[in-house]
């Protein structure tokens, strides 16, 4: 039995045209093909500048691809995010496609617990259930309970990152994009994240991520996808 295909990139290219830098053009991705199945964890590997983060951002539709297609299985049908309307993209992000970056974008005055609960609320859960699940996530990621009612602006880098992971993983989504979510975590918490990812995969999620830490990569990766900087290639 083969696992379901969840994400398919076809001939994907991305370049940035900088109108105010004398029309400079940065080519970052060219002609890229990638297939991601349910239950696998593909780790992007390659040196800094190879376009790994750019690729994740293009898939999340945070960047617009210059050419090619980003096919996502959403509600059992295929949608090309390169051609989708903003409302379609938002719906895909709400229910199908999760993205966890290295940094928490802090919202002034909103307590950590509410920041974590928000995506679940938006997915339609009751406030009570959302807060309960958020507590469980924060607890599991060893964020001390005394911090839950505080806005994370003043938290340490590692604490913010754990709040960010809790927020990113609270809604079980079929496709997860992870951009070094464990960069400033200690070994104990990295192990918790590895465990959460294993559970997500067992539940059928497809994971595509960037992990510089080799231990972490060995723990979570089912396959590597090597990338190389275009200008150097």
């Amino acid at each position, binding site marked *: 039995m083969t696992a379901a295909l969840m994400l398919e990139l076809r001939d994907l290219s991305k370049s*940035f*045209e*900088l*109108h*105010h830098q004398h029309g400079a053009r940065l080519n970052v991705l060219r002609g890229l093909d990638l297939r991601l199945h349910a239950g696998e964890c593909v780790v992007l590997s390659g040196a800094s500048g190879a376009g790994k983060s750019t690729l994740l*951002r293009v898939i999340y*539709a*945070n*960047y*617009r691809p210059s050419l090619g297609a980003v096919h996502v299985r959403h509600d059992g049908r295929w949608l090309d995010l390169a051609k989708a309307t*903003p*409302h379609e*993209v*938002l719906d895909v992000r709400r229910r199908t496609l999760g993205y966890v970056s290295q940094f928490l974008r802090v*919202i*002034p*005055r*909103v307590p950590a617990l509410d920041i974590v609960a928000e995506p679940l609320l938006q997915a339609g859960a009751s406030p009570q259930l959302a807060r309960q699940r958020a507590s469980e996530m924060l607890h599991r990621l060893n964020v001390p309970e005394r911090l839950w009612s505080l806005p994370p602006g003043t938290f340490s880098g590692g604490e913010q990152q754990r709040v960010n992971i809790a927020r990113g993983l609270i809604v079980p989504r079929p496709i997860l994009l992870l951009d070094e979510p464990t960069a400033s975590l200690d070994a104990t918490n990295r192990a918790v994240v590895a465990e959460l990812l294993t559970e997500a995969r067992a539940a059928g999620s497809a994971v595509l991520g960037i992990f510089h830490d080799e231990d972490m990569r060995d723990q979570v990766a089912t396959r590597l996808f090597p990338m190389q900087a275009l200008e150097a290639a």
Partner: protein
Amino acid sequence: MSVLLKVRNLSRHYGTRVGCEDVSFDLHPGELLCIVGESGSGKSTLLNTVAAQLAPTSGSVSYRQRDGQWLSVNALSEADRRRLAREEWGFVTQNPRDGLRLNVSAGANVAERLMALGMRNYSQLRGIARSWLERVEIDPERIDDAPTGFSGGMQQRLQIARTLVTQPRLVFMDEPTAGLDVSVQARILDLLRRLVNELGLAAVMVTHDLAVARLLAARTIVMQRGRVVETGLTDQILDDPQHPYTQLLVSSVLTT
């Protein structure tokens, strides 16, 4: 999802000068859309034309009202337009003194729009006014004070309470945080963010501040010289701007 507001090829000229030109967009229920651009780019003209406070030179605005009927906003009589503004819409002005009645109490400012909808029971009105003052973080003990004695930030929060008390389905906001200190701005933005979510409001907000758009709006429209130069997801526009003018705007933001 069904559309709430349809704007098509909307233009507003001032004599030979262009205010806004050929603007089209849809707004869905529960969605907050930001219009960004520099001073003079036509943001406020567009907002006022969509909100039927200015007559368009050409184009159309259609609104699906509570009962599901589509209204052609430009074709409404003055009385119908006022009914719409009273019953289904709200407008928050940049300067709270333009949106408040300064010579009556804070409580009366909040209750007034409810009274316009026919609510007459004094103690009920007072109770609702108190709870709304609390909701926008104004001490309810100040219910009988006139807003002239309030700080700018308090006045703006009072205007927000006055506008939202009738539970409008669509709110127009013109730079609601522009004249305020940064710390006061953060409080108002957080409040707006929370209320928009809780009440499931749809809103169109004009701002020159890209950080405000990032915080509040899923979608953004960028305007320059009266025209839309770029439109789409807010994070896409801010992180991967395509148009030279948007790139200039984004690169001019100071980051801390």
